[in-house]
């Protein structure tokens, strides 16, 4: 297999500590970035949707909006891949608790927001996007697996793709099994060729070696606290501009990433 080469044209990031990718860059440069407000702004959503949307949707749409704005692409033209290890955990907690007590009272809105593709559904509606859209999960390898899916769409379809990977914090008894203690979301816009907005090129190859990149604190702790933060080695590399890192693509498969300046 030859390596897959794709180009990063935009990046988005949100966590309780980091408002965007610039905040990560600032942190890694030794500064203390200002933390964002408690709820992701998700300005791409119409105001009425923004008020009603669950945090999982706000988080995914916030980082998607950041990355697309940076790329200069029109959101309606981008195929979209939204990944999440656990989906909307507060809704899962609500649904399982309600089903155990008063199942006939289940909220129809929360039920349709419980589908794994709710964030990408809201995104396509808000941006008028008729392109293919998908929603993935692969536990702690969710970012690596969705990066592989994104790169394969970029190269086979020869079109730019929006990749989002996000999980919100868990709540209720579910927390004990997901271990997801804080929110984290990130997004990339990937393209088949370099352009004026290209930030870096990536060469991706699958490997049987499963030594994932180590991280310094506080990034190591953030990765521990959220499966989607498995993206952090790549994001940290992007802040530097070049180098090599490795992520999990699956439970038994590594994804080696070589990044170059453009």
């Amino acid at each position, binding site marked *: 297999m030859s390596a897959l080469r794709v180009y990063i044209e935009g990046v988005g990031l949100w966590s309780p500590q980091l408002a965007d990718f610039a905040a990560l860059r600032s942190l890694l440069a030794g500064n203390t970035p200002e933390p964002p407000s408690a709820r992701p702004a998700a300005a791409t959503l119409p105001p009425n949707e923004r008020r009603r949307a669950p945090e999982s949707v706000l988080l995914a749409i916030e980082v998607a909006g950041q990355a697309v704005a940076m790329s200069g692409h029109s959101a309606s033209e981008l195929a979209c891949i939204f990944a999440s*290890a656990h*989906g909307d955990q507060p809704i899962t907690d609500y*649904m399982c608790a309600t*089903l155990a007590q008063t199942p006939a009272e289940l*909220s129809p809105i929360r*039920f349709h927001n419980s*589908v794994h593709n709710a964030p990408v559904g809201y995104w*396509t509606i808000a941006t008028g996007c008729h392109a*293919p859209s998908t*929603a993935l999960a692969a536990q702690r390898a969710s970012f690596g697996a969705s990066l592989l899916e994104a790169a394969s769409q970029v190269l086979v379809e020869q079109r730019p793709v929006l990749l989002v990977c996000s999980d919100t914090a868990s709540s209720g008894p579910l927390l004990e099994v997901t271990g997801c203690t804080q929110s984290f979301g990130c997004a990339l816009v990937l393209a088949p060729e370099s352009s004026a907005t290209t930030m870096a090129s990536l060469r991706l190859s699958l490997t049987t070696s499963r030594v994932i990149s180590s991280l310094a604190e506080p990034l190591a702790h953030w990765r521990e606290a959220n499966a989607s933060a498995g993206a952090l080695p790549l994001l940290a590399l992007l802040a530097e501009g070049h180098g090599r890192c490795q992520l999990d693509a699956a439970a038994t498969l590594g994804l080696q990433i070589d990044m170059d300046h453009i």
Partner: protein
Amino acid sequence: MPVLMTPLAITAYTTTSAMGHGLAAQLDAIQHTRSGLRPNDFSSAPLACWIGRVAGVEDTALPVAQAGWDCRNNRLAWLGLNQDGFLARVLAARERYGAQRIALLLGTSTASIGATEEAYRRLDADGGFADDMLRPAIHAPHSLSAFVTAALGLEGPCMTISTACSSSAKVFASAERLIRLGLVDAAVVGGVDTLCDSVLFGFNSLELVSTEPCRPFDAARDGISIGEAAGFALLERIDAAPDAAQLLGYGEASDAHHMSTPHPDGLGAELALRDALMRAGLDAGQVDYINLHGTASQKNDEVEAALVNRAFPARTRASSTKGFTGHTLGAAGIVEATIALQAIEHGLIPGNLGGNTPDPICGAQFAWRNEHQRVDVALSNSFGFGGNNACLAFARAGFAA
């Protein structure tokens, strides 16, 4: 603009649903117009509806090495893998290509959420999960794929696609891309969804569940019947199996309209259809059979019947088979792919079970009863919440568009 796709061989496939275990049971149920639906005897509290429940799931035991994955959804997955010699075909492919050269892509809408529901029904005194439910891996959407990849001993790319009711159609598209790029030589695709309170009471809360067996495309249809199913297919390059049926194309598109209601003009559904035909190099007139999404919801059937009417000539035959299986949600794509493949293999167009008083919006394409004719090309439609649409195109071995 999608480019013409090199067809892939479907070297093995299987399905298990309320129609029975394996392909022979499915064919027999269709030949004898025997629905698998029965009055709801599943939900943890009473709910007046009909369900497509798979017999024998409760008695299925997982392999000892995978005992930690035990839950209804993974039992149904294992039951399904053991039909039609599918397991042996995958193991032979693993020998041939190597475990890292086979991808596993499965679709599911709720995975093993039934186990999480159970954990919440019997929380221990301090409000936490009981000890036997403290198995983190089954309380996640990837539970199904992680279990199946372990059970099959596969080590290639492994992902779960969860786009509600289009999930296990979209896995064919993702698998084709991985094979085309040379990342793998083969892919196991499919999907599994099991009955659980979340979907029974959830669809009920949206007033989408009928109290009667579902009646797709019937003038008096009043909602869906929920079912469960497992299905799998093995995809390889065509030179590995020139005599196997083929995946000719796929199409994917988004409605950008509403979370739980289809676009009124079927915009996303039509884009997915056109995308699939273009990749397959087909004209609509070459399509012999379409297995429709046909859920028996008011809106879906109205929009889909109009699409069939404007896109296909009368010679193209169309039907929904949800009257046999119920709506198996994330598994519907693979179940209906196997029905399309059986239509090609056996020259049997399944009648649209439940449509006793056809809705006048339905055109001459509809097969209300079983029809026997040669089928070279068959499509399968799958649409999901969030306006997520997929269409698959299959063909007989040797078919040239």
